[in-house]
């Protein structure tokens, strides 16, 4: 059953005991969009992402991906559907090299990826993918260094590389520029725009400059519900949004 939206949530609600983290969220994403999810702390942005990848199960409501109901899907199945995500706190494989990190991500969709009998290097298609991704993110020079020893900025880039290497249809980025200096954020912005060409991206960000430069559309979350949606220009002019961010609510 084809849907016009690649991602759609219907009435998504999540309550933790008495605390309502998400209330009746109806989010839609069109294929190929580059969307930002913004809002003050505690608005429910990460909670929403966690629902999409199955780390949290909603109290009520549904999530549809490419028209298919994926509500409550086990996390590892999300990738098989074409959803990949990166994390706010760097979440790589620390003692493995950068190349090995990317390999694991790139190997995931491959056939024979759980084969215990062949040598892993025999998966030439994976090797090609790894080289391609490393080049994209400019991490070739440190490819053979342990990931955990690299700088914060490099690890954030690796985070994104892991998300991209699986060739997802939908890539969710949770605060890709978290903890980065201005110059590094510019590089990330460029990278995000580059990888957005073939896929749908939704990112969470607090860095408003980044958001304004990079994305095409914005959803503003506040107190677990969607406050307003629109283009960057519309959002920056919106008084409600300004109030919410300045904390006058």
């Amino acid at each position, binding site marked *: 059953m084809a849907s016009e939206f690649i991602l759609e949530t219907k009435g998504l609600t999540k309550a933790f005991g008495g605390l309502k983290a998400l209330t009746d969220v109806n989010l839609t994403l069109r294929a190929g969009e580059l969307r930002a999810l913004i809002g003050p702390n505690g608005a429910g942005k990460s909670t929403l992402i966690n629902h999409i*990848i199955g*780390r949290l199960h909603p109290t009520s409501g549904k999530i549809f991906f490419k028209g298919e109901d994926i509500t409550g899907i086990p*996390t*590892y*199945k*999300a*990738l*098989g559907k074409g959803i*990949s*995500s990166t*994390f706010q706190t760097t*979440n*790589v*494989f*620390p*003692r*493995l*090299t950068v*190349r*090995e990190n990317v*390999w*694991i*991500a790139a*190997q*995931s*969709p*491959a056939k*024979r*990826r*759980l*084969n*215990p*009998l*062949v*040598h*892993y290097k025999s*998966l030439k298609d*994976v090797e090609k993918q790894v080289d391609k991704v490393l080049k994209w993110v400019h991490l070739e020079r440190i490819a*053979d260094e342990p990931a955990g020893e690299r700088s914060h900025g490099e690890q954030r880039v690796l985070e994104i590389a*892991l998300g991209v290497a*699986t060739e997802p249809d939908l890539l969710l980025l949770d605060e890709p520029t978290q903890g980065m200096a201005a110059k590094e954020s510019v590089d990330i912005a460029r990278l995000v725009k580059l990888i957005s060409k073939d896929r749908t991206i939704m990112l969470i960000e607090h860095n408003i400059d980044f958001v304004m430069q990079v994305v095409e559309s914005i959803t503003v979350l506040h107190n677990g519900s969607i406050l307003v949606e629109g283009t960057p220009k519309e959002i920056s002019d919106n008084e409600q949004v300004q109030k919410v961010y300045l904390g006058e609510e």
Partner: protein
Amino acid sequence: MKRPTSTRGKAYISFIVVMIILAVIQPLLPPYYRFLLTEIMIYAIFALGYDLLLGYTGLLSFGHSLLFGFGCYGFAWMMRFYGMPFWPALAIAVIVTTALAAGVGAVCVRTSGIYFAIITFIFSFVLFYIFLSLVPITGGDDGFTFIPPPVDLGFISLEFGPVMLYYLALFWMAVAYIVCRRIVSSPFGRVMLAIRENDMRARCLGYNTYGCKVVVFMMSGLFAGLSGGLFAYLNHFVNAHYFEMYRSLFVLIWTMFGGVGTLVGPMLGAGIITLLTDYLSTLFRMQWGGVHLIILGIILIVITIFLPKGILSIPERVRRRAKKEA
């Protein structure tokens, strides 16, 4: 780490060399040490399976004594109650132990880290007690013996004897090593490492880490069963103490001492520690019974604190220290 083909070739050559050395020195060994070395090679198989679980997948199990014991008894029961020949009995031992590992693994692997360690500990301790009490089945403390059949190779039948046992153990150790090496360098091996380094991330990258962990547990059970079966054959005797906790401890010490996550390390550890234990227990006799275990406890602590990657990491540390000072 990207291994240029020359290093891979080197590893294979060293492996072949070691196998040849072991094969050749046999006639030179006094009977006591021949027996000890045979035991060590069987233990090495056990250690290999354990390293797959601990070294490569990051799961610390205190329950492997259970699997080893099952391998021993699987084999022994087939001998004792069905008079089976060698190969089917060994196969049954392996299958039964792997099946047990699947069951235990399916329940235990949902947890990880300390939880997993505790649960495997409980399982192996309680089941040891149960097996010790089930005298009609296990023979309890006294156990039972059986007549060891010859190993039938089709064209020739090898009678049970110390020389044959030595080469049998050597053969299986070689096979076990090759298989483990393959597993570890395979795409599945990559997943094992991913699970070890960051289970949650691996899951988000699309891997069914629960299923994979059960499979690894089964693999380590397979090798435990194989080594248990061979061990029972070697001694043509089993008793409930083959399930005892200390075997879990020993396999852990061998692995940590030799070098966790290297496959070779645990085999080496099995050899050195067994020889050391043998030496110490003759040195301190009954009066001080157990001193060798105190020493092993100390070794374990010292290694875990100061040499967490085992003795195989010494050359690399020396190299790194030298580089730093350069």
